[in-house]
């Protein structure tokens, strides 16, 4: 099954690059391990939840930072949440931005916060695209009758 092998290879390459480039970390691998027969769509479900949650958080952050009088505690709460969820699924780069973001919140540094917000958005979009691509490949493999390679 050439098609399948090819897809599988692509899958592995893609996945590997995600780790290598720091988009994903070991926590993502943990998630993969959690998926089993009783919960076969676990990873996709969790990641979808993450996407939804992230978009909400990013919107909230944008709103909060646009206020005349900014409530940094609130901003910090959102960032904290974002940090928690991104770290839970292994979205490392997003999490890293959140760490820096929180520092700016502590300092009440608006410019810093705005920069971080942009970065967070970008990183989020990047990882989302990459994960979507990965899932796509996975789907294709399965549809072609192949099995999805296990990630180390």
């Amino acid at each position, binding site marked *: 099954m050439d098609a399948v092998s090819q897809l599988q290879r692509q899958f592995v390459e893609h996945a590997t690059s995600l780790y290598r480039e720091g988009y994903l970390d070991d926590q993502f691998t*943990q*998630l993969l391990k*959690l998926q089993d027969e009783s919960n076969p769509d676990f990873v996709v479900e*969790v990641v979808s939840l993450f996407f939804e949650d992230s978009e909400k958080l990013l919107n909230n952050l944008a709103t909060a930072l646009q206020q005349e009088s900014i409530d940094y505690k609130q901003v910090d709460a959102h960032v*904290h949440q974002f940090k*928690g969820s991104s770290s*839970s*699924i292994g979205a490392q780069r997003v999490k890293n931005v959140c760490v820096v973001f929180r520092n700016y919140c502590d300092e009440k540094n608006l410019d810093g916060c705005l920069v971080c917000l942009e970065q967070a958005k970008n990183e989020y979009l990047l990882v989302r695209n990459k994960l979507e691509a990965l899932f796509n490949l996975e789907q294709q493999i399965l549809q072609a009758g192949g099995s999805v390679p296990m990630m180390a």
Partner: protein
Amino acid sequence: MTTGSSFGSGSLGCKQETGVPDQFPAGLRVLVVDDDVICLKILEQMLRRCSYHVTTCSQATAALNLLRERKGCFDVVLSDVHMPDMDGFKLLELVGLEMDLPVIMMSADGRTNLVLRGIRHGACDYLIKPIREEQLKNIWQHVIRKKWNENKEHEHSGSVDDKDRHKRGGDDNDYASSVNEGGDGILTSHKKKRHNNKEEDDGELETDEPGGSKKARVVWSVELHQQFVTAVNQLGIDKAVPKRILELMNVPGLTRENVASHLQKFRLYLKRLSGVAQQGGGPNSFCGSIDQNPKLASYARFEIQALAASGQIPPQTLVALHAELLGQPTANVGMPVLDHQPLMQPSKCGPVDHVMSYGQTLPSNVTKQVPQPAIEDVHSGLGAWHSNNMVGGYGQLGGQNWHNMLLGMLQSQSHQLQKQSITVQPSRLVVPSQSSNFQAVNNGVPVNQTTGFNNSTVINYAVGQRTERDVENQIGGQSSVSNISVKEMGEKQISFGESVHVLDQGSLRNLGFVGKKSSIPSRFAVYEAAESLTHNLNYGDNNGERRVKQEPNIEFLENSKAGAHRVSQNDLMSVFSD
């Protein structure tokens, strides 16, 4: 799953109201509370894979309702710290109080101060997100531990005579029975299990309740405390979390909560030490406490003199002690009783502060960083302190503690003091022994052990790490240390003169007490003379806890709610009272 309450895979029905599920740990009933739905989902899956029954809630209030409606249906609660509808710590407290379930906190924020808060509020453990499956596999241990501890308490509850007599809810109750036991004795606490809450200390009147309440108090004996300190030392004060400490200590029946509360106090103690060391502080509080007990004061004087004579106590400490004992407001007291004036240098307020702080709750002095060296000193001091006296109650703040410390110091210090860098650490009288590793002495107060000092009182100082391994009771050449069994006295009095039995662990060692047979005989004489006094020494029930009681009589023991237990605990604990 993400709505208020989702009943996860677990059966809604309660399997058992009591005890542990059948195929423990499989089937452990876990309630997870987290407003982050992603985390919630992940945790649920992880817990399911551990064969646990999982119920998830994304709102704390819903979780609380669920717990209330279905009491006995859950074994353990996992809760996030940051939640919009209720603070995780608040939930933690409520669950602990109302349902007495082990609660494990989680957060992406692992800062020490937060972890400490968690501990203070009674968390069994504190996990830092992202959480891995392996971490969850082990949570069942908290359930078991808690249950065992409660059972143990129930067993003991019947045996103690004066259970009933708790004056104050204090945790410390008693000591008792274990006097002669080795490390285990420590855990015999017949009374309720100590909750981390201070409230218990303050207000409850624990009237026995043998079987009733589940809150038994753990008596932090010298050995236990020593083990604690060792564990904390190994982990590093900043990294020491109750769970690990508990594992390292490996004491059956000891719960994470016990360790957590002890740790909390210990940390406070450390902070106080470092904080106090820098501040002049007012000795007043300590001083006041002694007023009430003239006998103690005079006894203390003897001690001070003895100590002073031995030259082992750093001037500052002595000053503090003295001030304390005499109820003098400042460290500058002239120390009338002391013959050795030079030793008592009135100038330092530092020691006094320490004294005070020791017994008291440390309010603001507490700094976050506890300098290691300070700790060490302290520990050593504590060690000595602890082992030395189990005086019935460390009466009001400080007073008794000091007394105890003095006694302890006398015993041990003769040789040791010189070697230590004596920094007057707030409550720890410098301990002669070279316990450099003291570290966590603060916490717990092993107090229950009384070292027989000339057959008399043994003051248990919180023992930090004892470096000296040979515990020989220097006191009067006695090699045994008697544990003060508070209960014997009826009201938690430390029975001095109880059969002395050696502190095996060398708790004395650390204190520097023992091992030196060459203790100064004359000192002992002092003690002997004062022995009768010591009987009444009630070192306050709380060393520093809020409840300092100022009772006019010398019955320290009465004052101290906890009797021996209190003593130690108070001493150390007072530091911790927060």
